[in-house]
């Protein structure tokens, strides 16, 4: 099954294994935002951003085009479920998600030995929040939006660290993840290193 695991063939066919993995993670992301919605929170606007876990998990598994398909599926899926696909709430989520996932992707590719998911999650959250603030300034609120910028970014800082810690645990303990890393062959060496570390 992994014999046709070449960059060209990986994406071929809706039933191919890599496409399946992308769809599973994209569905997982939608599912986690539903879970997060159900978890009781002290304040309604506090969120950890669990839906970004699959996006971070995908970093080690996919090439850039595959990764972007995953991100697009997540954005489109959320737009469809929340019904905001054709409104400009969608511009916020799309803008924030695309900018942050590209940042996370390049950060991961460049420094994956020196960074854990805590740092990646932090950079992702900061990027996404800043892009959303800029969009909010131009689309809705005017420059007075910057009055809420400090607490908004602070919440993002705290929640993204929590999410990063969770992803660190998840990638260490998930058997699905370790087999997927092995299958992906993208970070072959690193993947195996990580798994052997996890076992010890």
């Amino acid at each position, binding site marked *: 099954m992994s014999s046709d695991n070449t960059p060209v063939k990986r994406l071929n066919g809706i039933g191919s294994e890599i496409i399946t993995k992308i769809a599973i993670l*994209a*569905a997982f992301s939608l599912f986690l935002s539903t879970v997060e919605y159900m978890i009781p929170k002290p304040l309604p606007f506090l969120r950890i951003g669990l839906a970004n876990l699959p996006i971070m998990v995908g970093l080690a598994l996919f090439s850039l085009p595959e990764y972007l398909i995953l991100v697009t599926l997540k954005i489109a899926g959320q737009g469809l479920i929340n*019904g905001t696909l054709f409104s400009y709430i969608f511009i916020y989520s799309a803008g924030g998600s695309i900018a942050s996932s590209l940042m996370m992707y390049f950060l991961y590719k460049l420094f994956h030995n020196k960074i854990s998911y805590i740092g990646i999650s932090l950079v992702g959250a900061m990027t996404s929040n800043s892009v959303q603030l800029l969009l909010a300034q131009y689309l809705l609120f*005017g420059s007075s939006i910057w009055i809420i910028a400090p607490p908004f970014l602070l919440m993002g800082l705290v929640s993204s660290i929590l999410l990063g810690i969770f992803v660190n645990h998840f990638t260490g303990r998930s058997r699905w993840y370790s087999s997927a890393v092995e299958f992906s062959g993208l970070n072959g060496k690193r993947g195996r290193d990580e798994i052997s570390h996890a076992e010890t």
Partner: protein
Amino acid sequence: MKYRMQKPDVRIAAGLLMIPAFLLQPGLVVQGLQVFFLIVLAAVHGRKIRIVMITVVLISITAMNMLQENGRVLASIGSFSITLGALLTGLEKALTLIGMIYLSQYMVSGKPRFPGRFGQLLSKQFLYFEHLVTTWKKPEKGRFIESLDSMLEEMEQGILTDEEMGLSNPPNPHSGKADVRNATPWDLGKAAGIVTAFWLGSVIGFAGIWP
């Protein structure tokens, strides 16, 4: 090959036709009526009306815009003044956002299918999503990661048959084959009626009859 519009596409087309009438609307009163129309439209098509969300959006956006003073002072509280221009700008932005949200809710209420490979991928994603939502059980304490992981493994092992994934018979939204999802004249007529009503109302605003 006769092209037949599918049922969900009718709503998307109707929505797209309504967008200019909504976004180009200069009058605040008519815009308010349009928003009301769109909320009712979304509700009739099975979407939830979230009063709290509407209120929060309305108040927060208006309040934020009020900080940028612009125009005649209506009232002052301490050093803070409510100015007419800022109030109108804020209300307009808030109404635009709320209206677009509910217009969008209406547009996706028919569960549209997207054409091509991306569409197939999206349906695959939703099949997995439905599986996750329906099989999810509350995990024991401290077993959250394990229970998520086992769900992932289960899906990887192929919970979906080829047929479920539409692989044997890939959905082709533009095939001429009769489909239960194809739009009936009634669907088209209803959508045309909605678009016409919406535009007629908006013309009142364009003509400047109402502020």
